[in-house]
């Protein structure tokens, strides 16, 4: 499998250099780490919002660093959570004395490393570190038999709302409440038409026949919860959307944000074809779409596929989601 890379082991390092070269005035890389922070971090008088996770999900998370969203993003190796010491450096570098909120996607690696990092950072004098764990993937039952639901594309709405709250001056407790409010109201479900190929392995993580797709995938090239026959786009949209809506159980007339998210290798054309059906389904379910987002927000390298996110919003969340933001991957 061909990739536009040099050595597989250098890909994260070189990607981050390529990013700061693209946004020299906006982004800064912490020396000797894989952490990207706002060039002007720490931002006086504001709670800092940071996130992080394995690489391969670009523009997640570094693409969301900037005014009104994240103060810092730590990049691990491909699909591997960042290490605790780098997370701790990020927390220290972004803290302006108002405390730091860590937005963590629910994977054991991420959670364990962020917890360790928070302890380390507090030992180094960071005033207060809070954590929220995003678990929007409705494919995985939250039961005794799993490590809970995964954090996927809904995370960017957490970044957006919490980032706006921090930017307008809310305190850490309030910012955390906002983040948790998004988490309580968002659900996502994804499908893969192809496996992704990691730089290290250089071959598809799983084999998928010409007539099969995976439903209920995460964003790490892991197989999904179910393998089914290939379907037309409208049926896939229906399957994914219904799973999310079943989980959320929204009332008639509820306002929502929808996201049709590409997994990295999906042409935009196909995302819009999906979106067409998603919007029809919202209508059928009596939901009011306040904002319909379509694009590559949280990817799995070159995987072909998409996820559908629905988030219920009220006036408070709408104000925060519409609030100005200026980041490489999202501007409002």
């Amino acid at each position, binding site marked *: 499998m061909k990739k536009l890379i040099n050595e597989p*082991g250098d890909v994260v390092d070189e990607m981050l250099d390529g990013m700061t070269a693209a946004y020299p005035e906006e982004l800064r890389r912490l020396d000797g780490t894989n952490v990207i922070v706002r060039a002007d971090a720490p931002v006086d008088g504001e709670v800092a919002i940071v996130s992080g996770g*394995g690489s391969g999900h670009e523009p997640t998370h570094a693409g969301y660093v900037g005014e009104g969203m994240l103060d810092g993003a730590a990049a*691990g*190796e*491909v*699909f*591997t*959570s*960042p*290490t*605790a*010491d*780098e997370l701790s450096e990020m927390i220290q570098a972004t803290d302006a004395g108002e405390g730091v909120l860590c937005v963590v996607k629910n*994977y*054991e*690696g991420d959670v*364990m*490393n962020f917890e*360790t990092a928070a302890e380390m950072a507090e030992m180094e004098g960071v005033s207060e570190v809070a954590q929220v764990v995003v678990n929007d993937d409705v*494919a*995985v*039952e939250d039961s*005794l*038999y*799993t*490590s809970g639901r*995964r954090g996927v594309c809904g995370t960017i709405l957490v970044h957006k709302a919490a980032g706006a709250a921090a930017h307008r001056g809310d305190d850490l407790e309030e910012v955390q409440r906002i983040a948790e409010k998004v988490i309580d109201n968002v659900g996502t479900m994804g499908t893969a038409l192809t496996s992704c190929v*990691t730089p*290290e*392995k250089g071959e598809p*993580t*799983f084999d998928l026949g010409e007539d099969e797709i995976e439903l209920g995938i*995460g964003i*790490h*090239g*892991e*197989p*999904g*919860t179910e393998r089914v026959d290939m379907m037309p786009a409208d049926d896939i949209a229906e399957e994914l959307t219904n799973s999310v809506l079943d989980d959320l159980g929204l009332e008639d007339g509820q306002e929502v944000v929808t996201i049709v998210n590409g997994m990295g290798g999906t042409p935009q054309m196909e995302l819009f074809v999906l979106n067409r059906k998603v919007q029809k389904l919202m209508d059928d379910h009596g939901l009011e779409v306040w904002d319909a987002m379509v694009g590559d927000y949280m990817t799995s390298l070159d995987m072909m596929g998409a996820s559908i996110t629905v988030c219920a919003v009220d006036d408070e969340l709408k104000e925060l989601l519409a609030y100005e933001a200026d980041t490489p991957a999202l501007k409002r």
Partner: protein
Amino acid sequence: MADESVQREALLAAIENVTARIADEKEYLTDLDSAIGDADHGANLNRGFQAVLKKVEEMDGADPQEIVKTVGMTLISEVGGAAGPLYGGSCMTASQELDGGITTETSIAFAEAFLEKLQDRGDARVGDKTMVDAITPAVHTYKKSIEQDDLPPLQALAKAVDAAERGVEFTVPLRASKGRASYLGWRSVGHQDPGATSTLMILEEILATAEE
């Protein structure tokens, strides 16, 4: 057990052997992780142990406890993912038990502390289809073989490796309840856990070094 510099040599030899073994088996571990995870366990551990080897080779005159602590810290800061804080954090914490160098007693205390920290951090129990399924029987067997069966440490270690091996096989028919494999639900059944497998490899290399 022997004096500090002999212990240091033995430790370094074990680290070299583990590092070489993981490098050899990198692809295999990653393949196991492809089936029920995210295809990085081999690369993660290899990156970690290469760094560990470099670090400890530079540690002139450190005592065994310091070396083991450094191993743990390096794994934490190089491996990432789930395996980093689990292997690295447990190793770092358990290194406190090696205050008096490596003796039969301290090795048992180390093993117990390692297991305890691992369960603490990862919240997994036997049967969840994780490295815990290999480490738990190994630690229990090691302790029991020495304390109750009065076996010499080397033989106890050999029995522990056997136990770990059965633990690895035990993971195959299980449905995972922890780690990424748990997201697959019933589809995880029939696959061998990569973390348990790497645990066995590490233990095998420690045994092989001890036997030399």
